[in-house]
């Protein structure tokens, strides 16, 4: 399974989401590759992804995709992240 985290530059907020998503996935016992990327490369990077994690600002720019697009409000709240990931993957 592949999960892509998206932000503007692909280094800051998407990196935070990647780190915390990996922590949550470990706790849930789920195996997935998490890749952080910038919005400019989303089409290429997320072509084979099951889930895209991002903030509300990028939903329109991500556009049509086969992946589940999940909006995260608080990037540090692993409870929110865990609940949303479990709902999408469960």
């Amino acid at each position, binding site marked *: 399974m592949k999960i892509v985290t998206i*932000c*503007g*530059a*692909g*280094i*800051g907020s998407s*990196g935070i989401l990647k780190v915390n998503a990996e922590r949550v996935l470990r706790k849930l016992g789920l195996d997935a590759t998490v890749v952080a990327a910038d919005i400019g490369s989303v089409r290429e990077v997320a072509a084979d992804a099951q889930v895209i994690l991002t903030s509300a600002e990028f939903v329109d720019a991500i556009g049509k995709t086969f992946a589940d697009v999940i909006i995260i409000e608080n990037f*540090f709240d692993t409870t929110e992240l865990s609940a949303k990931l479990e709902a999408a993957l469960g």
Partner: protein
Amino acid sequence: MSLPPLPQSAIVIGATAADWRAAVTLAGDALVSSGTARPGYSGEMIRMIEEHGPYVVIAPGLALAHARPGPEVIADGLSVVTLAEPVLFGHPYNDPVRVVLALAMASPGEHLAAIAAIANVFNDSNAISELADATSADEVQRIMKADLP
């Protein structure tokens, strides 16, 4: 894993900013003070937000401003600015912002350890309010678990 350098010169307590642009500029100025970015970096961080929206407000009260690695970055660095009066970034959930972090990364590939260290600090849900209420740079370094020089 270690946080990017956060010397006292990169910390501003109780600053006054008229709006989000001023707040991001203060955080960029603090990177200039610590010698990790050039003055043009603030403008690059502001352009990221103008282009993509206030997504840098990644948790209630906290903005993590940054731009891409490039000529305006001298070295990896972090700055912390706490605001006397919160400012609005226009974020749907996490406004108003009381703490602005600015991150400078010299190269695109090697930042994840630094990002993980930032995540470690803020996965403690009290960290943002503790930073906002901090009264000294020492206290900010302690909350951020910065390696002291």
